[in-house]
């Protein structure tokens, strides 16, 4: 750029504040914060009202159970923010579970080597999804419904209907071990926290992450701005495959059992938690901290209700209702915000803005019709 002809502006005529709202409003008035607040409220209520909820085992088992969802929700968040979806993740969990068993028991490989190969295969599964979606241009919903069946079929085909259970105790114990003896946090939270930090940096603090949001909001404009839309989507599907495979290894060791039908239906739990955490199914909106809160919220509600001896069906009804409400709240919040701004600023500026927008829309309509 040494030959650039344009001077960087210095002492420009106008300067702008960085933010239109004070910090507390930017933090508090978000969907993510609403989920976190609800999570804190539910934990507080359960601690006081649900017997044994504050016991030492509740959160230990809670984390053990939701760890696969927590892990897969990270790449799934990015995939959904680009406006795509990956339904094949649970099948990759199953495939990876079977692969670890076969490579360890049949081929005699050590668990770390078998696990590494399983993660590689998971990445390849994701790459296949990503290739079809990003480069061939097929809709991800259709592609991953197909690979959901395909990968699950391969998993069951490799192992049949039997289960492999002879894993070394050293590894199955590690999967259930606590970080600090006597505390509620199991070992699996260490790789999760590492991955979560990596995904936060990738999504919220990197040029790549800005591209992810732009693709979700307007992929054509992203393309015109030089974002490599295809490569971005491809990489996200690869990440989803690899992380799902890792979750599969954990799942196998935590239950000490590898089966072809492991984690069936997990993909819907992951997507439900991601959406509850404030990610828009239409893409372009969402944040990792909201998603993590969403996953934990679902986990806390289920374990609290289980301690109160509610049946799984009733738990599902509550979580389903919560999801529907969260979807409705988005449009309700939009409506309320609109009302608020109209009342706050009077009818003048707001209505002229509306006009401006309408004019733009009409002008755009005009120009396209002109051809």
């Amino acid at each position, binding site marked *: 750029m040494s030959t650039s002809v344009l001077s960087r502006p210095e002492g420009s005529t106008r300067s702008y504040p960085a933010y239109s709202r004070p910090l507390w409003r930017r933090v508090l008035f978000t969907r993510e914060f609403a989920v976190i607040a609800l999570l804190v409220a539910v934990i507080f209520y359960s601690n006081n009202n649900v017997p044994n909820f504050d016991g030492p085992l509740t959160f230990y088992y809670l984390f053990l159970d939701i760890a696969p969802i927590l892990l897969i929700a990270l790449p799934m968040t990015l995939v959904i923010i680009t406006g795509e979806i990956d339904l094949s993740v649970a099948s990759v969990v199953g495939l990876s579970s079977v692969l670890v068993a076969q490579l360890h028991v049949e081929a005699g490989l050590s668990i770390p080597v078998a696990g590494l190969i399983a993660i590689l295969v998971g990445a390849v599964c994701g790459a296949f999804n990503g290739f079809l979606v990003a480069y061939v241009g097929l809709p991800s919903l259709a592609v991953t419904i197909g690979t959901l069946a395909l990968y699950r079929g391969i998993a069951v085909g490799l192992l049949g209907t039997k289960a492999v259970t002879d894993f070394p105790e050293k590894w199955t114990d590690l999967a259930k071990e606590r970080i600090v003896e006597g505390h509620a946090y199991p070992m699996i939270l260490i790789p999760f926290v590492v991955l979560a930090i990596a995904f936060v940096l990738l999504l919220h603090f990197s040029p790549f992450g800005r591209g992810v949001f732009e693709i979700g909001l307007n992929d054509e404009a992203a393309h015109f701005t030089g974002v490599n839309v295809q490569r971005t989507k491809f990489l996200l599907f690869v990440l989803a495959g690899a992380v799902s495979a890792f979750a599969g290894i954990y799942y196998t060791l935590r239950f000490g059992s590898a089966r072809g039908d492991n984690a069936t239906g997990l993909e819907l739990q992951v997507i439900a938690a991601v959406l509850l955490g404030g990610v828009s199914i239409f893409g*372009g909106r969402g944040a990792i901290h909201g998603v993590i809160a969403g996953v934990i919220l679902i986990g806390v509600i289920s374990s609290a209700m289980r301690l109160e001896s509610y049946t799984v069906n009733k738990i599902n009804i509550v979580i389903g209702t919560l999801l529907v409400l969260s979807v409705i709240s988005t449009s309700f919040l939009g409506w309320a915000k609109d009302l608020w701004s109209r009342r706050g600023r009077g009818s003048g500026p707001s209505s002229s803005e509306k006009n401006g927008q309408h004019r733009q829309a009409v002008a755009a309509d*005009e120009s396209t019709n*002109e051809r």
Partner: protein
Amino acid sequence: MPGTAPEAAPSWALELRDVAKSFGAVVALRSGSLAVAPGSIHALVGENGAGKSTLVKIVAGVHRRDSGVVRLHGNDVDFGSTAESKSAGVAVIYQEPTLFPDLSVTENIFMGRQPVGRSRRIDRAAMYAEATGLFQRLGVAIDPRRPARGLSIADQQIIEIAKAISLDASVLVMDEPTAALSGVEVDRLFAVARSLRDEGRALVFISHRFDEVFALCDTVTVMRDGEYVSTDAVAETSVEQIVSRMVGREVAELFPKTPAEIGDVVLDVAGLSSTGTFHDISFNVRAGEIVGLAGLVGAGRSEIARAVFGVDGYDAGTVHLGGVAVPPQKPRAAIKAGMAFVPEDRRKQGLVTESSVARNVAGVIRGRLTHAGLLTSADENRAAGPWAGRLEVKTSALDMTATTMSGGNQQKVVLAKWLSTEPQLLIIDEPTRGIDVGTKAEVHRLLSDLAGEGLAILMISSELPEVLGMADRVIVVCEGRITAELSRADATPETVMHAATASVSHAVPASTQEVTA
């Protein structure tokens, strides 16, 4: 002559008088007047944006007029929907008809009003018989049972016309019907049009091709800037006269391109071709120079620009920037080489309207703003703020989204985004479309200043005064080919319009031919 409406007569099939239509603050039609006699083919001509399409849409019931009079056979009408205009006997045939591709030709003709026999079942036999009759009357050979998918545009138009006749439309409006037709197809369409005229129907024919206007029509109405200009019998006028009326206005001093020192060649495009879109496009742009790409809407100008920048591919040819080859279909590489591209459609392509001003402005350069690979909002704000300030973007804060901004303000955000990359070449497609007059002048002054600083600018514009006022050199594109390259001195409204409607190239004045030869 300009400004006077045609004389009133009781016998007009379609009559519009001082019809006006605005969209918000944008006036699309100031005072449109048109009077079409039954048994006549009436041409409606004018530049891009002269208000022809708006006028047609008011007649068709797509838009509702703000003021003025519309009469059909002497009766005042006010269509609120296309269904109303259809039942009143007005049919509009668009350039690209929209048929249901999987239904048969006959089903398309009778869509929504299928004849029913006993027990309310659709009487297919009656439908096919009537469709066959219609095609015989029009003298065309189309199988009424075949699906509409795969029909040529010409055949699709014939089906629209058949639909209009079956509705017994007394007024047919054809909006640029010949744009996508071959010579033989045009002849067939003309034969059909003449037979409809002889049946006593009134036809309005919109076209950019003067030879067709003169071959087919008996009367011609000229529009300019949303206003009625003149109506003449075709026999009593000439191409030159009509062209001068279409463009006849002063080039306002709204476009203050100051002379800049013209430097070396920055962009060199050679032999660029893309099948069906543009052919053998070669030109260059020098530092400090504004090159205008003129032509009618749909001539392929935007497609050329998109190919040069790499958002679209091309089949043959090369693009060099500053002597270095730019690979095809790689916008990133083009940006790296020093290209900036402000696209035609701001809201869809230019910026992410739901994203903040800071993120939009820093959108291209954000890769350079990182510290150890990490990017924070503070980095973006620091980089974006000064550029937003230099372009005087109107926003209360950098985290406001561009959703509710005016077109002019959005354009400033797009320009800030691209200028922050410190480019050598700026490609700008329709720089002032949908922008108010004040901001328009600002954009023009900015482009002029940028050229003065040595930036090479390739400007696509459908507004002739803008091209003539701003460009040091005008390249005219017609139907995917360069038909003229005019120096600032040679570029007049007439020479550009003649080259842009290349089918009348035989009538191009000597001065243009010297330049192109």
